[in-house]
Structure formats: structure tokens, C-alpha cells
């Protein structure tokens, strides 16, 4: 056991986070000068920087971080390295909420840029609570049933989405398609301020649950005998994941893969201790999404590519490479 290893990891992760954020602030279709970055007024560059670049970089980090840390927590809870926020219904619920909003509350969506995120957020929460209710028996959440309940609820939201998409008109269909591709393009300060409290609260709560998640990796029975608050941990991890992922992806649309890949990257470098894995997954997830967003912005400028496509395009081969490299090391 070398205690210096996590320290080195965090040093590099924080360095990478700062670098990626800096690149994100500097990169884009509009040329922004140093003077404009440092508080210029009036010019387009200065306005672009304040109105768009800064909130966008922050949102990329918040959303990617939320996906990363929730992925790590859920993989620990399910004791399954394939778990990610989609598994407990967050993503399916958010999509159903979004498409419901687009189809049934069209005029509302035009009126306020909050309307779609609110629909998606409510959908995410409702689906997660449904999953939890199905998997509860005598006040206990059965993790094995939770997985199946997640699959069932995902199928149900999929069916709901299918029905609504079937009944949707052409423009609603396109709106939904682009929401489901995910993008940080529309991010403003309101998205940052709306999701920040949820993400921060959930992140703190999940990191605080690190020791319990370590115990839970041996299964609920062993964890209970080690004095871990098993039931309350299960519930709080589910709720925290739904809040953080729901609140952030509500604004950005579906962004897959980060919740799955970030914890794996971390574990390959520094093992399984959740007190390291959770915060490190936040940073890795944040870097991944912010970095992918930079590419999304410049690949076809002045047009934009949905960031979800970029994440999958770069992330999948990277993930495969890591797996090949880490083959001999468990996981």
C-alpha cells in the first residue's frame, strides 16, 4: 500500500482539470483576446466569454463530474462494473420527461428555456423512485431486484418514448432527436446555477459514503456486519445519483458513456478504494466531457457537433485500449 499513489493521481487530475478548463475557455469559433477575457466590456469577444464560454466550461465539468462520480457510486452499490446512471432509470426517465415535454407542452418550451430541463429532471426522479419502489421489500432495497427493476423501468420508458415519438410531428421528433444526442451548446449561467446545488450536494454526500461503499463491495451482509449503514446508504446513493445526473443532463440532454468509463479509468490507475475512486471519477468525468465539448465546438465551426457523438467516438476506442492494457490486472 503506497499512500503516495492517490496523491500523485490527484495532482495530475487537478492539473488536467485546470488545463482542460483553460483550453475550453480559450477555444471557440469567436476569437477572444486576453484583454476581453480579463474583464473587457462591450465587445463581442468579451460578451461571448462571459455569456457563453465560462458557463459552458463550468457546466461541462459539473455534468461530466456528476456522471463520473455517480457511475462510480452505482458500480460500487451494484457491485457491477457495468452499472452506470442509465441503469437505475435516470437517463430513461429524463428522456421520457423530455419527449413528454416536447410533445405535450410545446408552447411552454418556447416560452422558457427552463421548461425542457424541468420536464427531464422530473422524469429522471420519477423513474428512479419507481425503480426503488419496485425493488423495495419490507423497507429494504434488494440490490439484485434493483438491477432488474432498472431494466424493466428502462424498457417502460423506452416504450413510452416510442409511443410519443410515434405520435409526434416532424419538428417535435427532431427536437427530441437533438436533445437525446446531448449538447452543451445552449448552456448559460442559468443552467450552471440550477444544477450546481444538486451536483455539489450529491458529490459531497457520495464522497462521504466512500467508506460504506468499500464495505458494500463485499455484499450487503458483510457490509452490515462491518457496521455499515447499508439501507440508508443504498437509498441515499440512489437519490443522490438521480438528483445530480438528472439535474445536469436535464440541461445538456443524454450523455452516455462517461458514467461507465470514468470509474474504470480511475480504478486501473489506483485500485478500488472509493474514497479515492469517487472524487477522482468526478475529475476524470469532468475532464472527459469538457475536453469532448472543445472538440465538438471546433470540429465543424461555426456549426457544432453534438457532444454525445464526440464522447462516444473518442471514448470508446480509448476505453478499449485501456481494457487491453489492463487485462492482466483484474477488471
Amino acid at each position, binding site marked *: 500500500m503506497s499512500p503516495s499513489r492517490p496523491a500523485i493521481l490527484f495532482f495530475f487530475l487537478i492539473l488536467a482539470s485546470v488545463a482542460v478548463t483553460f483550453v475550453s475557455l480559450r477555444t471557440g469559433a469567436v476569437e477572444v483576446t486576453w484583454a476581453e477575457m480579463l474583464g473587457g466590456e462591450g465587445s463581442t469577444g468579451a460578451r461571448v466569454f462571459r455569456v457563453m464560454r465560462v458557463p459552458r466550461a463550468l457546466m461541462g465539468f459539473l455534468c461530466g463530474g456528476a456522471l463520473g462520480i455517480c457511475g462510480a457510486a452505482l458500480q460500487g452499490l451494484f457491485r457491477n462494473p457495468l452499472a452506470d446512471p442509465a441503469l437505475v432509470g435516470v437517463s430513461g426517465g429524463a428522456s421520457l420527461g423530455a419527449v413528454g415535454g416536447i410533445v405535450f407542452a410545446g408552447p411552454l418550451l418556447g416560452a422558457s428555456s427552463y421548461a425542457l430541463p424541468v420536464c427531464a429532471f422530473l422524469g429522471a426522479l420519477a423513474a428512479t423512485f419507481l425503480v426503488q419502489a419496485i425493488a423495495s421489500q419490507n423497507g429494504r432495497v434488494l440490490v439484485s431486484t434493483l438491477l432488474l427493476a432498472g431494466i424493466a423501468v428502462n424498457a417502460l420508458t423506452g416504450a413510452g418514448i416510442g409511443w410519443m415519438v410515434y405520435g409526434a410531428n416532424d419538428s417535435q421528433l427532431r427536437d427530441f432527436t437533438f436533445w437525446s444526442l446531448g449538447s452543451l451548446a445552449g448552456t448559460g449561467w442559468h443552467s450552471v446555477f440550477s444544477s450546481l446545488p444538486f451536483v455539489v450536494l450529491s458529490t459531497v454526500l457520495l464522497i462521504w459514503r466512500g467508506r460504506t461503499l468499500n464495505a458494500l463491495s*463485499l455484499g450487503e451482509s458483510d457490509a452490515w456486519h462491518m457496521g455499515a449503514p447499508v439501507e440508508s446508504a443504498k437509498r441515499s446513493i440512489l437519490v443522490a445519483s438521480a438528483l445530480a445526473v438528472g439535474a445536469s443532463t436535464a440541461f445538456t440532454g443524454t450523455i452516455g458513456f462517461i458514467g461507465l468509463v470514468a470509474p474504470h479509468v480511475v480504478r486501473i490507475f489506483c485500485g478500488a478504494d472509493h474514497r479515492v475512486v469517487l472524487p477522482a471519477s468526478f475529475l476524470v468525468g469532468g475532464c472527459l466531457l469538457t475536453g469532448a465539448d472543445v472538440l465538438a465546438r471546433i470540429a465543424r465551426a461555426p456549426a457544432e457537433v453534438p457532444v454525445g457523438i464526440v464522447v462516444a467516438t473518442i471514448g470508446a476506442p480509448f476505453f478499449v485500449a485501456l481494457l487491453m492494457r489492463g487485462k492482466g490486472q483484474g477488471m
Partner: protein
Amino acid sequence: MNTLAAENLSLSRDGRTVVGGLNFSVPPGSLLVVAGPNGAGKSTLLRVLSGELPPSQGRVLFGGRDIASIPHRELARRRVFLAQQSECRLPFLACEMALLGAEAAGHRGRAARERAAAALEMAGVSHLGSRMMSKLSGGEQQRVHWARVLAQLDEQTEDRLVFLDEPVSSLDLAHQHELLARARRLAKAGATVVAVLHDLNLAARYADELLLLNDGGMQSHGAPAQVLEPETISRVFQVSAQVIAHPTDGGPLVVVKDRIPNEPAE
């Protein structure tokens, strides 16, 4: 004196009563072995005695208190439990596994690491410390979990409960005896140890008291030499057996001849 006692205890599994009306007590400083055929409810009994599962009837007392009324965290510092098999799919190292036990006992930082190292030493697996759990053999993993359990057990062994659920089924002969000898020393130092074992000769060798369970309840309870009667063994396990004196210590030694064919249904 903190005695572990079962009071009119009934256990059910999936709504079916497995064991009814158990009454017994285990004085501190002794090692109780629970034995019996498959499905007799040994593991369920262990989980009820440890407070993990609620009994369907009756109660478990520890030091006169209902075990269900002892706060979870306090109980975790006084009671340890080694499962038959603990599975860990995340890439934990063996030393981190032992550290989990030390932290469960409330130790932090350097103190926790020292306790974990000492426990690995006690379990004879110091050399595996930097290996990944998933790369160890089943027996090696079990010994690391034994180290984790030892790390959770405070230095002060009095007033402590140690539950071992078929702890040696994946171990080789030497390590079976090593683990049970350690358990016995813990008992001698004041802990109450309850272990589920299949091997009646291991039970005879290490148990202070033996509890035989059969379908429906307790068949026999007492010192191994009293409990291990050929008739009792054949009734409980459906085998014809002889009990002879152990050539070195004179204790009971069970020699099984063959299985008694199933009796036709009544």
C-alpha cells in the same frame, strides 16, 4: 458476564419454519460449534444469533440485552462475522481488505494500517498484502477475509462475539487447524465464538460445546464427548458411524461407515 443466549428461538426461511423453540446459552470464553445436515438451518441460526436477521419468534440476548436493541454501530465493534465466502469484484488489494476491518472497528489512518498489517500477520497472509484479491485462490481469499475479521476484532477480546460460518471449507488441512486454533485462543482470551462446521472431528477437537441441529430443531447440546453418540449421529446425519477414542488425546473420533438408505415414507 456477557452471555449469549437464545430464548425460545424460532427461525424461518422463506416463510417456512426451519427451527422452532431453541433454548441454549453460550458462556463467554467458550467455543460453540453448530453442526447438522444441509438445510437444518445452521447458517440461518448464525445470522439470527449475530443480529443480522430477526428471529420469527423468541429473542437473542447478549449480556442480558436483546441483541436487536443494541445500536448497529456498537454491535459492529463487539461482534465480527466471517462468511463462508465473501466475493469482491472490485480490484481491492488484500491489505485494503484487512484495512476495511480495522476501519469498521473505528480505527483511522496510521493506527488502522498498523492493525490491518498485524491482522494479516496473524492470519499468515502478510506476503499477500500487495496482491489483488481477485488474483488470489479461494483459500487465500478466505484467509485474507479472516484477517479482515481479526482486524475488526478489538484487541480486547472480552465481551466480544465471533461468528464463523463454515470458515474452513475452502482451506487446506494446515490452514483449517490454524484458523480454528486461533478461534480457540480468542475464546480462551474471553470471546464468545460460534462456528458452523461440517467436520465433526474438527468440531470434537476445538469445540467446548457442540449443538446438533436437525430438521425442526435442536437434537443435542453439550460437550462434544456427550453429544457425539453413534445413535445421535446416525439419526441426525443418516449415516452409520462409530465413535472411537482419539489415539493421541483420547477425545471422540467419528468414523463413518456408510450412508443409511432412505427410509420409505411413513
